[in-house]
């Protein structure tokens, strides 16, 4: 009980702190600093990307995204390491209930549609809102649907594994390409490919390529996280 009282006092203090913060925030009326810079540079199509947020994420602050993909990769590997089954014990015959016919055919019909939608999202990352992460998440939700619908569905591990590591390595390779092709300061620069016509699918240099790779990687990673979490019961 005392713990609740102490926590209550503590959080009252935080309410007070946040009250000070909210009071002192003056509302932004115009862009300034780097935000303004990015807006103007995208205005005159420096990177040829319509979606400024994508331009920032993929190229301007490319190292952040590289780091973030690494974060997701570590989480997936960590979960795989932690949930590895020490002894390869195959689950004895406790057969799970077979899911109904409608569910099975429905899911097999719906899953490809969702995957295509996911691909659409990260392919148009530089044009419309969305991108690698969102697309990857949608693909993972497609696989989630298959897991839920068909309990005996097993993802093909080495295909996913190869896809995951190759897309990651390709992403780093594109970064190095920037160094090799353009110059010492151009790690992860998207201008290694032509910027193409503004607004078309194949524009904004390497951004779509990078986002596709990220999409594939995030998709497979989230799928493997789900697979590990689901894993047959110990």
């Amino acid at each position, binding site marked *: 009980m005392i*713990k609740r009282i*102490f926590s209550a006092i*503590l959080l009252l*203090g*935080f309410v007070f*702190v946040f009250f*000070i*913060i909210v009071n*002192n*925030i003056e509302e932004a009326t115009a862009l300034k*600093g*780097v*935000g*303004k*810079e*990015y807006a103007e*540079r995208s205005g005159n199509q420096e990177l040829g990307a319509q979606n400024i947020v994508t331009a920032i994420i993929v*190229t*301007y*602050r*490319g*190292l*952040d995204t*590289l*780091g973030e993909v*690494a*974060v997701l*990769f*570590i*989480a997936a*590997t*960590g979960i*795989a*390491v*932690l949930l*590895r089954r*020490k002894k390869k014990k195959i689950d004895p015959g406790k057969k799970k209930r077979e899911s109904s016919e409608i569910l099975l055919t429905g899911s097999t019909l719906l899953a490809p549609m969702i995957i295509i939608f996911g691909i659409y999202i990260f392919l148009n990352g530089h044009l419309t809102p969305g991108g690698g992460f969102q697309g990857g998440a949608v693909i993972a939700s497609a696989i989630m649907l298959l897991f839920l619908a068909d309990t005996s569905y097993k993802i093909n591990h080495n295909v996913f*594994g*190869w896809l*995951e*590591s*190759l897309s*990651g*390595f390709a*992403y*780093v*390779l594109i*970064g*190095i390409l*920037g*160094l090799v092709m*353009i110059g*010492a*300061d*151009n*790690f*992860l*620069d*998207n*201008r290694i490919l032509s910027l193409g016509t503004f607004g078309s699918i194949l524009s904004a240099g390497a951004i779509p390529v990078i986002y596709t790779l990220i999409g594939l990687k995030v998709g497979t990673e989230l799928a493997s996280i789900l697979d590990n979490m689901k894993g047959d019961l110990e």
Partner: protein
Amino acid sequence: MVNPIYIVAILLGVGFLLPSFSKGGTKLTGAIFFAALISVCAISYQWLTGFLIGDQVSVMIFTAGFKPPISINLQMGMFEAIFTGSINFMALFGAIYMFRQMAETGTRSFVLFLLMVLGLNGLVMTRDIFNLFVFLEITSIATYSLIGMDLKLKSLSAGFKYMIAGGIASVFLLLGIIMLYSVTGTLNIDEMVKIIPAVANIKILTIGLFLVLFSLIIEMKQFPSNGWAIDAYEGVAPGLTGLVAAIGTGGVFFAIYKTFPMMNKDLLSMTAVIGMLTFFVSNLMGLKQKNPRRILGYSSVAQMGLILSVGAWGYRTGAADEIFMLVLIPLFINHFFAKAGLFWIAGIVKSEKYKNWGMIKNNKIILIPFIILVLALIGLPPFPGFWGKWNLVLFWGATKNFTWIWFLLAGSLIEAVYMLRWLGYALKGEDTEEVKFDMTVSKNLAVFLVTSLLLTIAVYYSWTNEAIAPIYYLPFTVGLALFYLPFLPAKIKGFISMSGIAVYAYYFLPDQAGFNLFFNTIFLGGSFFLIIATMHSKGKRVGFFPLLMLMIGSLVAMVEAKNTLQFFFAWEIMTVSSYFLIMRGKKAQKAALRYVIFSLGGAFLILIGFGYAFSEMHHKIVLPISLLGAIEENKSIVFILISIGFLVKIAGIGLHTWIGSAYKKAEDDTTAFLSSILSKAGIFGFVILILIMGIPKIGKIDIAYVLGWIGAITAISGTMIAIFQEDAKKLLAYSSMGQVGYIILAMATMSGLGWTAGMYQVVNHMLIKGILFLAIAGVIYRTGTSKMYKMGGLIKKMPLSYTAVMFGIIAISGVPPLTGFGAKWLLYEALIEKGWYLQTGVAFFASTVAFLYCFRLIHTIFLGQAKTEFKDVKEAPVWFIIPQYIFIIIIMAFSMKPKLLLDMITFAVKPIFGESLSWVGDTAFSSLGYWNGFVVMNIVMVLFIGLTVLLLIKAPKVQKVKQFNIVFAGERPETPELTHFAYQFYKPYYRALGFLVNPRVKTFWKNVSNSAHTIGDSLRKIYTGNGQTYAFWILMYGLILFFITVGVK
């Protein structure tokens, strides 16, 4: 130079690729893993050498082809090179250590390891604050996964608490970043530093800065919100904790160091206070720990607290770069290698309680690195920690922050206590069989690499420190050479040492003058003869001679020290080598620990004294000793502190509780060295101090007067305690405490005659204690016991030792004709001349009481009837006898011709205190009377020989009575020894004067150590082990700090 971005590219690329090679088994992936690590080490090594040796200038690396505020940039400057280099190499060693465990877990653990290293490198190099957050998350998540890898309950629960704290920290960091962005408009640290002065008054900026700083302080595991960190250090596999403690905190520290330029003044002082508080309190809590890993946990949290505080200080006073190189790097490297190595050793020795680490004493492969790393951790020379602490005291002294120096040195003393207590158990603990070693080759290899790298850096630091010229290390060369010849028999090593001393004396003594020459002759001459005694042992006596020569070398180096740094360097080497010499004795662990704590305490007081002195000298590196005199402002504080430091060495009253047990437990011939040679080091310190600074006055009180009384009380209390001792070595130990008290009393008179008396007593005491201790050593060697009531009647068996002890006693008690009388005569002359009549009375009483313990010594051991078990005892080995009789011949010479000795002394004293004794032929005339040593000697010699001849001829037939046929009313006492007259020889005196002697000082120091332990014990109770309470503490800590620094306005 390879573009540092490749470090990121290689680590990430290989990290992504490794899972696809997992089909090839852990052999293949292991090879790729090591290839990646080695190539990254190569890149950082190239940059490191570029900066340290080449003239490489710091480089900015841009990404995405745009300049910083638009894109993220990395920087590779001198500091980044040092940090990335040390992180990468330590990661390589860590990988070697953890290889087996990782191979078992599979390829994924290699991936996690690579990405942790990536996170740390990124953390050090990035200049963008959000990128800092991303790399911080990479490091943390990789560390969490590695922690959970071994699936043990302890690691998982510690990991979970770690994640809660990490989660809260990242929440505050994100809030801070967005606030900073909203005010400054940029995310690049260098840009922010430019913009902040313009927007400094905006409240949101200060709150944003506070949030960023606070979240990184949580990551830095500062007190009191670091319960989770210490549980992690204890629970997680030691291989990983070694890495987390070293490179993990190193990377996070550099991240917070990068944000310091943005912080305003009171945020920085808040960090400095937090850091120092953590350092002091964590060390205090470390006192009560039982589990070795938890001890190391507290110690590493403390060290990082200190480093954080120093970093904050650097930026707060604007001397950031200079302090970074001079103080921060040595302290960091010291913590970096020592912690990793010690954690790894804790991994090898599988034991939960440090008390049963006695097992490793006969396993050299672990013991030697363990000793080196513990010494490095405490900050003893020549390890980098010593230089770091010295420069830090220098810096704080120059900026008059004395309370910080006190906290720093109190904290390091406490840390020395619990680390050396642990080392004591490792060296001398008893063998408990349930400790098992995990002696896999890879683990020991990693420990070996870490220790040798630390040693090379230590040598590099000592060698390139311009304050200490390489010639200064000459006295230590023989000691260090002997380290490499353990296989030689003791006699040859003894001979090598003696020739080393002789050669050194031959080359260096002639061109010295004054007190340097005087003390050098004592140190070198005394130890030259005493080494003969050490050659009695038949075996190899591995490790004894190098330590002995290091001690003697440090004494000589102390005499020749030109500046305070050299003096302190020699002083600390002397403390360390004498500590290990005492430690060699059987069950000498407690005594050695008490000795080293007192000496280190004294040494730290001297350092604080120098700290106060620096405040007026503003010397960059070091302060020439001669300039100590030019201090005015806090002259008396400096004098008092440094003199207390020397008093500890001489076991002055109040600081003497270590002397009895230390001299008793040390090996017999080592005690001879300790008593006759080592205690003179304190005297030499006083001589130098008084010559340069004179004895200042505080208001009306004249410190000289106080010092005089301290000497007198030490003399009286030393002798009083000595009478009642049952153990011969303890008796002599307290007697040497008393005799040295005389010297202090003599020097305190500050008159020519006083100083002559003092120096005379120095020589006299060195010679006598040499004889007495060696004689007792011979007796103990033969009889096996040092308890006096067990011996008796050894005069027939050991006549030579008897005569040597007889000479010693006559000399020590001041009975004419021997040198003792000269010392007492000069002393009383000086005291009367000075007008200190009460002190003369006390000194006189003390010397008469001194005769009592001399009588007890010779009577119980040699006279009376021989005990049955000692009837076939032979004379002491010749090696003991030779030095005793050499000293006797010297004493006889000085007694016959006192002018010989007194000329040497006045040669040193005259230039300072003027003429004190005038000579006519052999008689010395002082203001009060005259003394002719030669005449007195001849008369006494004639009488003495006549009497002995007379006695021998007419020796009456003595009726032999069986010794123990004492019958008490018909029944025999079961322990006849106790009825022997020698037992409690001075029982009646004890009843009369016993109250003077009961151990008040001992109980005082016991209370001090107990109260430190209880405070530590009660403090550590706040770590209840519950993750939620830790989260509560973090948030409460944040709230309090918020209201302190950012405040309400």
